[in-house]
């Protein structure tokens, strides 16, 4: 008797799952040309997503709408909002959050983690070199123009030894998965990469909305970021300091990432300051407190290079601390990231990353770079001219997406025009294959259904003295507009909780 009841129960569950599954994913359209993260080429759910797929299938669309609202209010309640610069009625918005998480299995994560560390370490060695002996330039591995044409190459940093030898304490590496199933790095962000607070808040929001799903997966925590960041920042304290006093400096509450600055300070258990809260005396940095001045040793700064010290850089900066750079140069305070790191996260440097990794670490890149053809090299120029329709053509010296031609969107006449330009001035151009970002089922409000949307992943790597940490998770950004490849939040992108599975 008992057995038959059990059977019926199981059978019933299976049936209902089929139905509900149809409800949620019934209208899901799979474009066979795109790499879908959860369905394989035959439309079968991949192993790692099976449980999740079934669990989500247990809800109706109406449930979803309700849960979605719940998640949104969770963000408002946590105060996680942002503003888009330049919008007339700058209203606080929430960063759209998608309830269907992205899962990265142990094997894939291993590649991402080792790859992120490798790049961060190589970039750090590159920065040390170009601010000291410049061997990589002298040996002709990367061209001098790479630094000489960069406004972010700060000569004030020449021969300065940052505490612990670290420049890029915090790196944000943006990776994508191409249709070939491999990860590629799109860019390295080593100025003041942001977004880590969303990683943690996405987890919180998903837990509030759908607590149950976490019982079925062994997922790495992401809430340990702040403690690891603080630990690693303390390893690069100035000489002679026993227990460093660390602060986070923010441009202020009108900055679009202010929430993150305050969140990090709060979770690290350190003070959040603005420039006016600090002052420099005899080349030491102090914080004004009601008990009197308190020395500051490590500053996690979320202010751009040119604004950190009006006496050294932009004199009109009201955000910085007068005299801060001299204190840094004398080794009395640590700045994370170090000034002058921006020279290494430019588009032109990116194209040399495989060479940079090989040169300093004698390793092959663990995560691939998007292949770059230098039109200055005759054989590569020949390839580019013959394959323009399959390539993205970029001028080497333009920033912000100007002058980019996407081969498959050009008319015949335009192709000829681009060919002519490149042939006339090959040194000015590089070309890359057109990358297709993988897609992930994403709940679309207005259609009340799941649809394929392109995603990327920003990982967060922290370098300390002889130690490093990669947040086991990351910010999966979703391009909410159909077919759109741009995932930035200012361009209407959203995000997903990202699970890295334990072994």
């Amino acid at each position, binding site marked *: 008797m008992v057995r038959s009841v059990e059977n019926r129960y199981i059978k019933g569950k299976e049936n209902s799952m089929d139905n509900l599954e149809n409800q949620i994913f019934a209208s899901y359209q799979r474009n066979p040309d795109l790499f879908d993260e959860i369905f394989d080429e035959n439309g079968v759910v991949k192993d790692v997503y099976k449980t999740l797929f079934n669990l989500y299938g247990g809800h109706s669309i109406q449930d979803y709408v309700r849960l979605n609202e719940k998640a949104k209010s969770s963000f408002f309640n946590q105060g996680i909002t942002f503003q888009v610069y330049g919008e007339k009625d700058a209203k606080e918005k929430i960063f759209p959050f998608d309830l269907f998480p992205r899962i990265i299995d142990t094997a894939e994560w291993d590649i991402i983690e080792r790859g992120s560390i490798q790049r961060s370490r190589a970039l750090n060695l590159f920065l040390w070199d170009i601010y000291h002996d410049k061997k990589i*330039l002298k040996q002709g591995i990367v061209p*001098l123009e790479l630094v*000489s044409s960069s406004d972010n190459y700060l000569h004030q940093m020449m021969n300065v030894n940052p505490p612990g030898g670290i420049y890029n304490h915090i790196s944000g590496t943006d990776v994508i998965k191409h249709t070939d199933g491999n990860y590629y790095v799109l860019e390295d962000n080593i100025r003041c990469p942001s977004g880590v607070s969303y990683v943690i808040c996405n987890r919180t929001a998903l837990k509030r909305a759908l607590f149950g799903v976490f019982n079925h997966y062994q997922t790495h925590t992401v809430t340990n970021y702040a403690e690891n960041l603080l630990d690693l920042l303390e390893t690069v304290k100035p000489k002679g300091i026993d227990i460093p006093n660390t602060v986070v400096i923010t441009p202020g509450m009108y900055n679009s990432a202010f929430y993150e600055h305050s969140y990090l300070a709060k979770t690290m258990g350190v003070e959040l300051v603005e420039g006016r809260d600090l002052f420099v005396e005899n080349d030491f940095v102090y914080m004004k407190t009601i008990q009197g001045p308190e020395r500051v040793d490590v500053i996690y700064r979320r202010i751009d290079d040119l604004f950190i010290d009006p006496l*050294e850089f932009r004199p009109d900066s009201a955000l910085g601390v007068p005299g801060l750079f001299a204190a840094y*140069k004398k080794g009395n305070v640590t700045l994370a990231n170090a000034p002058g790191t921006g020279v290494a996260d430019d588009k032109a440097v990116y194209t040399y990353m495989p060479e940079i990794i090989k040169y300093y670490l004698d390793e092959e890149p663990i995560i691939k770079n998007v292949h770059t053809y230098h039109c200055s090299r005759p054989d590569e120029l020949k390839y580019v001219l013959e394959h323009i329709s399959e390539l993205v053509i970029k001028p080497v010296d333009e920033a912000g997406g100007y002058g980019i031609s996407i081969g498959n969107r050009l008319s015949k006449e335009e192709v000829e025009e681009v060919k002519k330009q490149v042939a006339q001035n090959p040194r000015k151009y590089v070309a890359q294959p057109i990358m297709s970002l993988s897609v992930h089922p994403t709940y679309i409000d207005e259609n009340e259904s799941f649809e394929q949307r392109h995603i990327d992943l920003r990982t967060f790597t922290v370098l300390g003295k002889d130690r490093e940490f990669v947040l086991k998770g990351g910010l999966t950004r979703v391009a909410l507009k159909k077919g759109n490849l741009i995932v930035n939040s200012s361009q209407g992108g959203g995000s997903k909780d990202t699970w890295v599975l334990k072994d």
Partner: protein
Amino acid sequence: MYQEYSIKYSAKNRYETLVNDAYWQFLIIPEDNKSQQLVSWEFANSLNDIHQTSINGFGFKTIRVHPGQKFNEISFEASFTVIKKEVNPFDFSLPQDSTADCAKLDDLNFQIDFEPFLRKTRFTSLSESYTNIFPFDRDKTIFENIQSLNKWISKYLSFQPGVTDVNTPLDTIIKEKQGVCQDFTHLFCALARKNKVPARYVSGYLHQGHGYFGDSQMHAWAEAYIPDVGWLGFDPTNNLLANTNHVKVCHGKDYTDCSPLKGVVYAPGENTTIHSVKVLSEQQQ
């Protein structure tokens, strides 16, 4: 032969509204180098606030003032005693082979080592139409070329205070053919760099006892790097090689790196600053 100078620098700042807080940084202390020695110096301000010394981003000594009180007016006075060694700026032999000499400028390692002083900066950028305004003669040595450049600029521009300010672009200066020592120096740096010779902007004091140009402010001239010789000072405003009359404070890529007074003042409204510089030759031995 030595020459001793007594230099007086003063600045007076007046503000329309009461200033709550302010920071100033002075880049005015003569440097110690092989041709000059800073014997003594003093600094004072009218509010009797203490000052500190520090460095700028390129390691040159600075003086910092951060008054602990509110004010409308503040004045600063500094005095320096400097001994200049009389050196012969022509104390080297010109290379025989000028082609080989000029070829040194094409060496990659040379260009890497001197990158900061070969780059275009905000004040040393020329528009396309002017880039060939002074091409070097490859049949002459680098030194000879630089000397002709110095002479050419001193003839091309006329010294005219008040027609340009710190933000006047080089193109305007070339078009108008006039300016002050900063403009002469920026043009020198731009054209030397254009011809692959490292050049840096120098800020300092000029003893005007010989009728040299330079108003009663700090002076500016340039240093060019001549391979196998080193950095040599050229004063395009006066068509001279820098000599005992030039007391150097600091150098940089252009004026931005060398501005003598930088201030961060937390007060709305207008302000005026009056600078003055006096260089007296105390004695001659």
